[in-house]
């Protein structure tokens, strides 16, 4: 019994340096997830600010060029959210690789980063918008009455409070994103899941490769949530 297990361990990891599929896959997954999180955050914040600015200003806005532009931007953002949130990430990934980048020969990892980043942005946008809208209107009015312009009020008064409120939800989104990257294998990227699959296709044993891959995802997510906890605690340190 034990011998068989050792033998399987050997076949799954040591033989032909198969553990390298897992190691390389792990770094690929990390690379895709990290860059996608950054893209998701940046783009998500931009969309959230556009959408909430439109919501807050639509009642008493002048009919100037600025408000027309804002309304147009809001419409584009709405369309973006509808499309991205309405379609599965696997389909988006395949579309980006095989349709959008069909004529240009891009790095597969880049295509995956785009797909997951743009996908994440849509969810981050709605989370952050929720955070901005949750801040009392009095905060904005107070900022404006003190002489801050609208963007400055946003940056120095509204957003810091909003971010603190949405941090748990954002952390959740990061965790989902990391696990979602497991479908990157569809475009022949050798990420962590695909690494396990390759070992599985060589040794035909399901248990060890799949459990190993699952454990690694679990550890990554545990570490990430621990870090987010620390960050949250630090941010709350100034509160009474």
């Amino acid at each position, binding site marked *: 019994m034990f011998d068989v297990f050792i033998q399987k361990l050997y076949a799954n990891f040591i033989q032909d340096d198969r553990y390298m599929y897992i190691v390389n896959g792990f770094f690929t997954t990390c690379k895709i997830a990290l860059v996608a999180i950054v893209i998701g955050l940046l783009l998500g914040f931009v969309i959230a600010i556009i959408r909430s600015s439109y919501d807050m200003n639509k009642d008493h806005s002048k009919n100037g060029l600025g408000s027309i532009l804002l309304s147009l931007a809001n419409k584009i953002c709405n369309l973006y959210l509808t499309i991205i949130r309405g379609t599965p990430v696997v389909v988006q990934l395949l579309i980006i690789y095989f349709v959008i980048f069909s004529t240009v020969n891009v790095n597969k990892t880049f295509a995956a980063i785009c797909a997951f980043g743009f996908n994440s942005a849509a969810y981050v946008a709605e989370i952050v918008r929720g955070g901005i809208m949750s801040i009392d209107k009095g905060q904005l009015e107070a900022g404006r009455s003190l002489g801050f312009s609208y963007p400055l009020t946003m940056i120095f008064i509204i957003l810091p409070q909003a971010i603190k409120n949405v941090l748990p939800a954002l952390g959740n989104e990061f965790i989902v994103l990391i696990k979602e990257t497991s479908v990157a294998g569809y475009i022949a990227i050798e990420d962590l899941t695909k690494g396990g699959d390759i070992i599985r296709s060589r040794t035909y*044993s399901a248990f060890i490769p799949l459990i190993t891959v699952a454990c690694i995802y679990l550890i990554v997510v545990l570490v990430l949530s621990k870090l987010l906890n620390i960050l949250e605690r630090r941010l709350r340190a100034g509160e009474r």
Partner: protein
Amino acid sequence: MKKFKSLSALLLAGIFAFSAVGCGGGESEEAATDTALTNTPGVLVWATNAEFEPYEYREGGEIVGIDAEIAQRIADELGCELEISDMNFDSIVSAIATGKADIGIAGMTVTEDRLMNVNFSDPYVNAGQAIIVAEDSEITGEADLADKTVGVQLGTTGDLYVTENISGVTVERYTKGFEAVQALIQGKIDAVVIDGEPAKAFVASNEGIKLCDDYLTVEEYAIAMNKNNDALLSEVNNILAEMQEDGSLQAIFDKYLNSESSDATADEEVSDEEGSDEEETSADEEAPVSEQADGEDAGSEDASLAAEE
């Protein structure tokens, strides 16, 4: 309490009787053996990957092809209902080993690693791994693949062969063969290594790609079954032998391979493959056919060769 015991005994007896019937009651007498041939009595679960023209592919919602007809014939002979389980190619062997499926017919080559996990029937056809490249490519054979980017289908013999035998090669493992071909057409990779017959089908239905003349490997397709099910193995071997005798196996290959050889280039490739197969198997009855063979269909030759072994 006594009543209870006798009742449960009756129940057990009933279950045994039921399982003993198994797939019995079919046309052939031999099928009515005393152990169940399949995991679910009366149902033969066929694991395949229906993206492998002309062996198995989807046409109007149905899975058709050479393997589909063989599977149907086996199910009929066993008196079972055929249930298709269409999965990723790399999952087929483990599905059979864990009892999720009864037989795997998927243009699957007999390899040592696979033999450690499943039983294989007698081979029913000879095949090889072909190289597909872009029309203007400089690649002409195995030697040119070094240091190139090659697309394969995960877990296929093409994948295993290229990974182990070509130096400096970057292997891109797609889940589906046609995705590798798509990547090739879009210029994302330099070549695709995939089984000969599907390769011809891909080349015939896509512009701008061609087959290399030389095949990478020569191999045999067989039917995979669970290691513990020797009864099913001998049944399937009997059926294959029977199909060989009455010419129905030949007829199936003719049906699917003839329609393709209308394509001139495909025909040429067929005769090339035939040449190499001929050397390997050296069948005693068939007169050897030269490399520049005439228009005679090679696939059917292959079928008859395989069965003669």
